[in-house]
């Protein structure tokens, strides 16, 4: 079985209707849903790489800069993501620590690594384990929005805890970078075309 593209057909990225393109250069629009048709997303790999690299770069300040600055009468302290996790764990609420750790450390890193892996395999023309790679990509796309958890928590805390002069919480610069990382990885995942994974595949499983 060959792919639709190989047969000169184009599938709608939105409703998956396979139609004949107007011309191979300009396939036109989907006759069902009106979505602009493309054989493959333009410069998908390059774009994904660019966004992924940007996300990776910004991941460093996101983790090194404090995300939350707490000022109380007694002291003022600023926490980075990791120190917050350690603090939560040390203060006994390890489930909370785990959530923050997973949402803020594991997921972003996992996303970046996964996308990078998929990109590399696609570029290398890897033909095996297409389904696993596709699943990975889907997971990345799905969980992308959930790693904003940290940013949400941050904004909630900042908005709620304003007991000045007793205590006040302010967002640190790290949160901006962290948000950028999340958004960039989300865009990176979106700009990737999963159809590229199986383009080179000789054997398409199933019927």
């Amino acid at each position, binding site marked *: 079985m060959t792919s639709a593209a190989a047969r000169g057909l184009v599938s709608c990225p939105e409703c998956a209707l396979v139609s004949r393109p107007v*011309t*191979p*250069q300009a396939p036109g629009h989907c006759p069902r849903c009106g979505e602009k048709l493309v054989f493959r997303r*333009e*410069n998908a790999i*390059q*774009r994904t790489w*660019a*966004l992924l*690299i*940007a*996300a990776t*770069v*910004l991941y*460093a*300040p996101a983790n*090194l*800069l404090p995300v939350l600055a707490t000022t109380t*009468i*007694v*002291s003022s*302290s600023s926490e980075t993501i990791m120190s917050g996790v350690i603090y939560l764990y040390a203060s006994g609420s390890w489930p909370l620590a785990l959530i923050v750790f997973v949402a803020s450390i594991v997921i972003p890193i996992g996303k970046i690594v996964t996308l990078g892996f998929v990109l590399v395999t696609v570029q290398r023309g890897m033909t095996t384990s297409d389904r696993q790679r596709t699943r990975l990509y889907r997971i990345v796309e799905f969980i992308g929005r959930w790693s904003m958890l940290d940013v949400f928590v941050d904004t909630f805390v900042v908005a709620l805890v304003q007991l000045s002069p007793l205590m006040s919480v302010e967002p640190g*610069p790290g949160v901006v*970078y962290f948000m*950028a990382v999340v958004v*960039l990885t989300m865009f990176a995942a979106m*700009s990737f075309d999963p159809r590229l994974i199986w383009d080179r595949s000789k054997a398409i499983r199933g019927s």
Partner: protein
Amino acid sequence: MEADDDIPEAVAVPPRRARFSPIWIVPILAILVAIGVAWERLASEGPTITITFKSADGIEAGKTFVKYKEVNIGQVTSVRLTDDAQNVEVLARIAKSASALMVEDAHFWVVRPRISLSGVSGLSTLISGNYIGFEAGASKKKEKQYTGLEVPPIVTGNTPGRQYVLQSTDLGSLGIGSPLYYRRLPVGQVVAYDLAPDGSSVQIRVFVSAPYDKYVVRDTRFYNASGVDVSLTANGLDVRTQSLVALLEGGIAFETPPGYASSSQAASETVFPLFHDRVTAMKVDESIATRYVLFFKESVRGLSVGAPVNFYGVAVGEVTEVGLFFDPKNLDVKPRVEVVLYPERVVAQLPTGQGARLQALVEQQGIRREFMQKLVEQRSLRAQLATGSLLTGQRFVSLGYFPKAAKTRLDWTQVPAELPTVVSTLPEIEEKLGRIIDKLEKVPLDGIAEDLRKALTSLDETLREARLTIQRFDTDVTPSLKAALNDARGALGAAEKMLTSTETNLVGPGAPGQVELRNAMQELARAARSLRVLADYLERHPESLIRGKTAEPAPK
């Protein structure tokens, strides 16, 4: 489509993929931002310094700040023991902006609440936690290793004022922060104290804040103002204290003796002695002092070192030594007292004009000796022990003139010269009293009593005789006396009769004497009337005395 088969189909060239997609701007921007962040972070990173403390009480990594003028200039990054586990090393990251302050003579100390009698400090640390205080130095040399101070410096380097060093035999109740008073105004503090390198004295550093430092002149006296200075003098009870704080905590006061106030201001780091009390401190500096030795012939009990030497009741010197002296010539031991006389004290008691003139003379040793010699040899100036207080038995040396004292010479070759003495008045009185008692003892009281008894016996006899005489008088004289009285009564009756007749003749109405008397009286009244007329006239016409009566003929 069939007909066109021979027409070659155009080759569809897929559009060449752009080598460079504008999407790459995103990672480039990200990299730039990341570099920017890193750069900013590195640029704001100041030096990390190490401060060694005895204990890390209240210092926590990441929570304790380094503050200078209450501004955060750094943060403690880690606290660890030194390698020998004796001290604590505190690593602090200093802000870039404050890195220039990290010079070798800067100081660090832990600010914690301190409550002392002289004040409360660091109270804010009760809620904010301790922090590390910082005091900038003057040096330019950078330093990364510091030893923290255990107590905060009292005076920060940029407080205007001057530091002085006081030398004392002991610290007394002084401590760091003890107040310094000038006219009972707190003007400074004790900032440090230390033993002198040889351990023989204590050096106390005091700081006098501006503008009061200008009152510290070279002749200023510093004295311990701790406690209460109670003295019972001839003027009564004199109690002196500085302030309640000084009373409880100790303190130092300074004062400049009158007459020295105009001397030049003392430079910073000038060393002053610290006197124990005001009286000692304020003693005018006696640069001229003459020592004399006194040999007494009586007990010197009650005479102590420091006892005054009075001259006409004015203290002119003091006793410096009390002891014994062995005379090898006649194998005798006698009390030896050394005194020092300050001629300037005599000068100080003189009126201003005289004092200045005499001061010049006093400063020359020759004149001074000549004068003293004259006093001793011609006017018989002698030293004498005197009792200051009969209650305590305290004695002092009194100088006075004793013209009756044996002539003596003042020998200047001896050092110190011997000042002749006389026996004190109290033993003299004792001696006189003794003599009187001796004489009283010699009185033959027994004989006197015998004589008295004899006299009384004879008196008794005399009285008995007198009584007999009176009895005799009673019996013999009284009857004849009665007869005499009767005669006298008769004579009185005759006299009465005679007087009655006289009355009728002389003063009864119609008595010739009476008539004549009345006439005379009338005549006298008339004369008086005419005199009144004359007086009236004269009053109206006083000129008539000169010119005579004009209109009327003058009265006779």
